[in-house]
């Protein structure tokens, strides 16, 4: 036993040494909401949580029962030595004790499996039948490595009623949401563990995810299907707002970007419109209308940058624009060669787009 402890201590030392040799990259910590299967905040995740309890209960009981029989078998069975001859008395004889036990155990197993199957199918049915009256419709498109979200229009509204945002969804508490999903490049998977199970965003196909947030709060989500270089940093947030707050947010999103107030902000807008930014980004109310990168019309109102990787502070925004490849290698956004003063003006103007 002492030797095992020595081995463990040595292993721990090796681990600490190697971990110490590594170094962490610096970035502002992002505050995050719940991201946990076991902390449901919506009806769908809640139903799955209840099913989890059923499965966990049954499986734990069965595991303990098997362990008990196993331990008892090892404990009670007589020991053999190298000279013990094989006991062939079972040949040509029906072993009625083991036979009854094995058949009984298999029968119990089948019964329990049927219980689990029924519970699973019942939950699945309940998930599919969530009430969808007055549902909010959002289309989410997965990109390497960020999320594009298009709100509305409802079936009979004109396309111009649509508005676009990125990496942050707002939904009203208590109202069902239907998310229509597709992938722009490779397969991604939208997953907000506290609200619902995941669904893939598949190029060439559309899939639907339904959920409802029942408690106000911010819930973190993340891409769950390996999608290349920066799969690890493809996060997003879902803000479950009180209905009045949601309505105010929606009204704000529908507006075009406000005209810049003051010379400094005007300077920032000019830098934006005069540089390569407009090759990829949209700011409604200006001539920038490209849709290769995230829509920036209200970027100042978001809490994070680069798909949940950075906090949306002027310092981090500046760092990001100057050299995105350093922060998130592989991202499509190129480094910027803007002089410092222009960069500051640009960051100030982007920050004002709320």
């Amino acid at each position, binding site marked *: 036993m002492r030797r095992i402890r020595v081995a463990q201590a040595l292993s721990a030392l*090796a681990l600490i040494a190697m971990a110490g040799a*590594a170094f962490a990259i610096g970035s502002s910590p992002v505050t995050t909401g719940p991201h946990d299967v076991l902390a449901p905040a919506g009806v769908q995740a809640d139903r799955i949580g209840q099913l989890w309890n059923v499965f966990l209960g049954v499986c734990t009981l069965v595991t303990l029962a098997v362990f008990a029989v196993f331990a008892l078998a090892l404990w009670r069975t007589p020991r053999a030595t190298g000279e*013990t001859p094989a006991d062939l008395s079972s040949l040509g004889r029906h072993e009625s004790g083991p036979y009854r036990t094995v058949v009984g155990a298999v029968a119990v197993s089948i019964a329990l499996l049927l219980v689990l199957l029924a519970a699973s199918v019942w939950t699945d049915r309940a998930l599919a039948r969530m009430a969808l009256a007055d549902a909010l419709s959002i289309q989410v498109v997965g990109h390497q490595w960020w999320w594009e979200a298009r709100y509305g229009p409802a079936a009979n509204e004109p396309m111009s009623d649509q508005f676009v945002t990125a990496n942050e969804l707002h939904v009203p508490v208590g109202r069902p949401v239907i998310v229509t999903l597709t992938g722009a490049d490779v397969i991604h998977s939208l997953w907000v563990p506290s609200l619902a199970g995941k669904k893939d965003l598949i190029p060439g196909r559309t899939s639907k995810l339904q959920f409802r947030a029942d408690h106000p709060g911010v819930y973190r989500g993340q891409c769950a299907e390996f999608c*290349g270089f920066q799969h690890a940093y493809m996060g997003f947030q879902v803000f479950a707002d009180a209905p009045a707050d949601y309505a105010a947010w929606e009204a704000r999103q529908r507006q075009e970007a406000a005209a810049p107030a003051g010379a400094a902000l005007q300077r920032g807008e000019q830098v934006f419109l005069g540089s390569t930014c407009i090759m990829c980004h949209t700011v409604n109310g200006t001539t920038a209308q490209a849709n290769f990168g995230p829509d920036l019309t209200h970027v100042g109102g978001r809490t994070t940058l680069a798909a949940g990787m950075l906090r949306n502070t002027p310092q981090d925004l500046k760092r990001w624009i100057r050299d995105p490849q350093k922060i998130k290698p592989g991202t499509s956004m190129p480094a910027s060669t803007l002089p410092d003063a222009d960069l500051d003006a640009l960051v100030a103007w982007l920050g004002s787009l709320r």
Partner: protein
Amino acid sequence: MSDVAPAASPMLNSVPPTSGQAAALERTWRDPPGLLGWISAVNHKTIGKRFISTAFAFFIAGGLFALAMRLQLAKPENGLMGPDLYNQLFTMHGSTMMFLFAVPVMQAVAVYLLPLMLGTRSVAFPRMNAFAYWIYLFGGLMLMTAFALDIGPDVGWFAYVPLSGPDYSPGKRADFWAQLITFTELSGLLEAIVIVTTVFKLRAPGMTLNRIPLFAWTMVVTAFMVMFAMPSVMLASTALIMDRLVGTHFYNPAEGGDVILWQHLFWFFGHPEVYFIFLPGLGFLSSIIPTFARRPIYGYTAMVLSVIATGFLSFGLWVHHMFATNLPDLGKSFFTAASLMIAIPSAVQIFCWLATLWTGRLRFRTPLYFALAFFVILVIGGMSGLMLASVPLDVQVHDTYFVVAHLHYVLLGGAVFPLFGAIYYWYPKFTGRLMGERLGRWNFWLFFIGFNVAFFPMHLLGLHGMPRRVYTYGAEMGWGTLNAVSTFGALLIAASVLCFLYNAWHSRSHGAVAGPNPWGGGTLEWATASPPPACNFEAIPVVHGRDPVWEAGAEPTHVAGLSVESREALVTTVLDAHPDKREAFPNPTPWPFVSAVATAVFFIGSIFTPWAVVWGTIPIGIATTIWFWPKRRETAAHLALERAP
């Protein structure tokens, strides 16, 4: 030499062979010496030992990839490596462990053991067996070379399109992965043919279908599964190579292709593949447990039927890897039912083993320890498998560390722990010496504790929302502590594998001399010397029960009448193993090796140019033609041995 004259037909006999006959058999069946002899070897034991050693070398490599990943994940926002290396590492770990270790090592052990267990002189198609080994080796070396040159694949061992397609994986990385599939599947399919033919046609007389050792049953079921599942992934990977190399659009949605097609084809192979790995592990348990419980296995027939049922059911589960896609919801429920159903045959086997343990007398030795670990680890893995079978639970934990925990619990509990037990169990047969018992215990306990420390926390990480295949994670996620614990467990596993390697290396020359049957086992491999002579058995045994060594003594004891000067083996009937005919087996030759080199050039060349497919066939054609060209002298010798009925 009158005693070498062929008899009119094989006879059942109880007169032992003479020492002159034994010496002649050794001359006839051994592999030739020298370098040319080394590449010409066709003896199944030579190929089997090379196969097992190579597979373990890849196991070490795959383990080191995993260890590097664990060090990177040990703390949040760790800068040990970037996404480029990390993505290569998890792709290499998965591909190496699945394609270069877990499936081949089972076939490798079978290639060594099956002729000994079944009482014959060779595997069927010994030259093809050698060819399959070389193909496997070259495919593995290609993958390792690509990784060493920093052009290793980085799209995951599952290589989902469109990420692995031409638009999102430029360069040759994904092509190396796809050609690895071609290599290993070719090798796997050939080995499947070898195994099925060996088990069905080369058994000793009297070994009727209901007396075949359970390990042989698991291997024959696995081999049939390989034949039905592997064409699916070969089709998928060939279509991927064509998309990448010659501009087809099988998986391009913009041109009417479908990205989900890949997932269907891959998992139609990929789920049965789990059982290629698991079923032989069950075969190891069914070999080890009766020996160390000192009684025949309880419920032989139920065990055989369970293995066959598992084989069939495993083809009906593949969609449970695709519950998060947009397939119809009702259809997914059927796959929930099928996935739960496969627990039944596994339960039957577990209960039968428990009954064997319960009614036996136990001798605790290292092989039994590894076998018993199954009952802890696999049961936990099976339970998390039930959870993953349920659509609602799966869409929460799919692609999280919960799945990583589950798959390691089933694959290590179901296959790797039994495999280590099997190596400890049969090592004396391979080498003539026993592995050290003391180091064996260290190996076992470090592995068992390290495994649970490494993988149990992953269940919790998955439930706390940690996705798979992330090269790092933010400190704010709160996953740091569990990941550090998991990395510590990985280091314990590494220490245990070091114990194993030292034990295997040291015992080769210093282990206790084993003798033919050190554990008192009941199957036929224990009826011959350790290590066995080149011909396996100086006289082919006649079988009178399921455990021929335990039930020895009935007459006749062996077969007479096979030539000792020519490679003759006895072919028996499929059902009842009646002696059927004498079959002439081929001599050693370097041409399988040369053919494998030509095939490797063809496969690797086609990564770079489609013309390799055209010109590459010419050397293969030449090499295989010479391989199969009949030799006048050998034909004459075989004709001389022919007897009219």
